[in-house]
């Protein structure tokens, strides 16, 4: 893709910029300045960020430039890591030492962590330049980024439309050239769906592939941390940088991390791509169906074998997801009681501890968070546990087994990422249950723990459509390989968002 003459720096991919940094064509300060200029230009309309730190970003860029200059002097540019000098944005539930981490909630509006999340530390060590924190649904609970306490984020492809969520700020920033790459989190689709809506690549890694340490928990057994990038190669580079065992997360896996970049151009010749019949019934819009089917034909043309598979229990995934996720969330949110940190109401004189906690939580949490806490509390209550949570856990095992068995018949499973393209703000359903249907294709991967990627595969109504590819445990390499094949045939290189305009 390099050599795109009309592209400005901030619209280029991470790997293009890396090559230019190595050759001395450009400095990190120039890239970072360009990103900051783009932010100044479009942020008022996009609203991707909730916190920015210009000075620290530029300082980081200068430090990166010194590293590069030294390596160039020593004729050792091979030692320069892929992320050195690259401006990135982190979702605002990823702890950043010294930079506020709010989860876009009034509850943590002024919370400044004393420590870096594992991913933050890895990015810093890799030399990335952290520009700021991306807007999100409050505590990652939502599919539109509208439950953020701060402001809405608008879709760079159409400012009247939502960016998706909950990692909407990150996806929008990457699409609009306000950051080169980003880190999001995905509990039920929160990386993939906004990536789909904003026409960028989003990868939810295998559970345990990337440390959750320092990422504010929503539903611990479902939460994953992954990249949102401009193309599949960037995705491979970012994943490599953040994946691997971390002793501070007991659920992080010891499995070796392959060199994902080397898989990017491997092609799909002979790859068996499974089409789960349950994911191609009614429920998706015609535009989405058309784009996805075209992408499947293109994959077949590229040499992949398309096989029909069945996930007989898949229809239950959403119900199981909302039981498990809300149960864990109700417990994870409990530490936010206003005692040690976080929001506390004014004029608390005379309150006892229970009143203080109630008032802090009552005023500190938004409606969607409260709704999920109450649902989760209900399903865990002694009289309801077996009927709801216990059953959900058993169903989850069956669902995972379903996915595992399907993946013995093929190498990966393909579906739309979301049933629709990004919808207009005025189209948002009032019924929260209708909104939960946004997650219909995505929650299964979280429940089963398997990796899944969303790659732009075409347009419908002028808006990007994402193709989801789900793979076997720890087999992100196959997703990257297949995702790249989709990218090559999607015709999306020519498409540009209205605002910004990242080069595809």
């Amino acid at each position, binding site marked *: 893709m390099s050599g795109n003459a009309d592209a400005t720096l901030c619209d280029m991919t991470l790997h293009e910029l890396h090559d230019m940094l190595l050759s001395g064509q450009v400095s990190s300060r120039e890239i970072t300045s360009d990103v900051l200029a783009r932010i100044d230009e479009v942020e008022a309309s996009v609203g991707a960020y909730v916190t920015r730190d210009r000075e620290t970003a530029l300082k980081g860029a200068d430090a990166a430039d010194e590293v590069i200059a030294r390596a160039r002097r020593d004729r050792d540019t091979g030692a320069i890591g892929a992320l050195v000098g690259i401006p990135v944005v982190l979702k605002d539930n990823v702890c950043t030492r010294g930079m506020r981490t709010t989860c876009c909630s009034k509850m943590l509006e002024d919370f400044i962590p004393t420590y870096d999340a594992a991913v933050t530390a890895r990015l810093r060590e890799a030399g990335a330049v952290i520009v700021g924190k991306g807007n999100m649904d409050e505590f990652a609970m939502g599919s539109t980024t509208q439950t953020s306490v701060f402001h809405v984020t608008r879709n760079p492809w159409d400012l009247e439309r939502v960016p998706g969520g909950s990692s909407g700020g990150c996806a929008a920033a990457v699409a609009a050239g306000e950051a080169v790459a980003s880190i999001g989190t995905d509990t039920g689709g929160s990386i993939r769906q906004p990536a789909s809506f904003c026409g960028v690549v989003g990868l939810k890694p295998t559970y345990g592939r990337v440390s959750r340490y320092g990422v504010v928990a929503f539903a611990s057994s479902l939460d994953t941390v992954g990249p949102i990038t401009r193309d599949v190669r960037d995705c491979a580079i970012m994943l490599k940088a953040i994946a691997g065992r971390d002793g501070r997360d*007991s659920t992080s896996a010891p499995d070796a991390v392959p060199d994902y970049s080397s898989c990017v151009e491997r092609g799909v010749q002979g790859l068996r791509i499974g089409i789960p019949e349950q994911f191609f019934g009614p429920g998706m819009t015609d535009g989405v169906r058309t784009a996805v089917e075209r992408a499947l034909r293109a994959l077949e043309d590229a040499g992949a074998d398309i096989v029909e598979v069945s996930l007989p229990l898949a229809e239950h995934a959403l119900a199981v997801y909302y039981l498990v996720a809300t149960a864990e969330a*109700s*417990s994870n949110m409990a530490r936010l*009681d206003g*005692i040690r940190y976080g929001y506390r109401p004014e004029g608390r004189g005379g309150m006892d501890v229970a009143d203080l906690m109630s008032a802090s939580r009552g005023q500190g949490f938004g409606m969607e968070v409260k709704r999920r806490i109450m649902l989760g*509390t209900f399903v865990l209550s002694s009289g309801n546990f077996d009927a709801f949570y216990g059953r959900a856990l058993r169903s989850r095992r069956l669902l995972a087994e379903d996915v595992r068995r399907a993946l013995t018949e093929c190498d990966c499973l393909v579906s739309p990422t979301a049933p629709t393209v990004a919808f207009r703000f005025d189209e948002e359903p009032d019924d929260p249950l209708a909104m939960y249907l946004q997650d219909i294709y995505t929650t299964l991967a979280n429940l089963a723990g398997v990796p899944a990627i969303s790659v732009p595969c075409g347009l419908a109504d002028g808006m990007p459509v994402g193709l989801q590819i789900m793979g076997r445990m720890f087999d992100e390499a196959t997703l990257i390989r297949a995702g790249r094949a989709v990218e090559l045939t999607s015709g999306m290189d020519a498409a540009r968002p209205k605002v910004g305009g990242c080069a595809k």
Partner: protein
Amino acid sequence: MTDRNDYEVVVGIEVHVELATESKVFCGCKTAFGAAPNTQVCPVCLGMPGALPVLNRRALEYTIRAGLALNCSIAGWTKFDRKNYFYPDLAKGYQVSQYDIPIAHDGYIDIEVDGQPKRIRVRRVHLEEETAKLVHAGDDIISANQSLLDFNRSGIGLIEIVSDADMRSADEARAYLTKLRSILVAIGVSDCKMEEGSMRCEANVSVMPRDSKEFGTLVELKNIASFRAVHRAIQYESTRQIDLVRSGGRVSRETRHWDDVRGETAFMRSKEQAADYRYFPEPDLMPLEIAPEWVEEIRGGLPELPDARAARYVSEFGLPASDAALIAESRELASFFEGVCDALAKAGAGAGVGAGAVDRAEGAREAAKWLVGDVSAALKASGIELSQSKLAPGQLAELIGLVASGKISGRIAKSVFEEVFASGKRPGDVVRERGLVQISDAGELAAIVQRVIEANPGPVADYFAGKEKALTFLVGQIMKETRGRANPQETNRILREELAKRA
């Protein structure tokens, strides 16, 4: 109306013990007692957003060790669960604990009350985390207008040990706790200091008619801060319940607070007000597979437990059972006792170093007598622990040797002990300094005896008149003359001989 004795008291006990691991159970913070508030903390034990627990393997090992020492079975597969409730001392709004699959289950402790042996079943031993410490700034919890939190305690490993309702009196409950503590201290998993809060207990008390098979309604007692309080609280509460039932009332299912000053229990909350803890498996920690080989390795590394030790003292040294139990129960006392025995053995082998050979069993019995008697009394009088005293096993061994070899008398030994205990001097030095070496030389003693006979014609006449008591007086005079150094047996023998000569 029925008699109080027509009722039986039923007691079950839950004990919480802080593990003596160097670091906390789910993070690397230190666990030292008494550090400045909130200095042994990190994001994990403060419950900061995003922080995650990592199990301290040593804490798991200690829990297994405790389970084995309490004769429990160890789970092959287990997990942690979250116990959800709100309280300011609970950093995360939930406590990481264990719900349905404890690490250890179905064990027992053997106790003895009034010579009656009894087996108390241990239902479960599970691992969980400590809460922070709440300090109410003010005179008491009611008048305090500020509460302070110390998170140094938050996240220290805690094991909960639950007994079956097998105890039938306050005495049995106290015996159970005493034995439990001695076992846990012996295996080194906790220091079990009730005054520092590293051991805490709650008692479940109910009463029922003696001929009944069905337990009465159970009342939970909290805020019990010492073994003495356990005894008093159970006694008070069982009497309260019995009197209530006798007068036609009903015991209600509730939690009561023990007030140690007033010596009574008071209503705290009813069963209906109890929280629903919404237990569910802790997703941040992986389930645990406990390898049987590891369990056996831990079992193999268990030190001798108090019961086995006491039995050995009886069979090996012929100690009276009560002395053996008393010494074996305390790790400190037992290791001191064995230190004395070792020192005596060495002195014997080294042929007369300081003291001279003492029969092994004889020496051990003497050591036990000293420990249970004068040593315990001296410690009690000075209000210190054995480890804080200046007394060392070698000194006691030397003292025993001095008596056994006839260098000093038993009576002199007591006075030497007092000085040794107070000053930390060696007994031999004290004896030398104060010139206390016993006079056993027959010639020397005879001369003294003769002097005393000549100086006391009256008593001598009484003796010849058949008053045996006069002899005691004469011995007393000899002791006075020698400041107690005369060998009593020799003195007696020579005195009789000398008197016989004059008959």
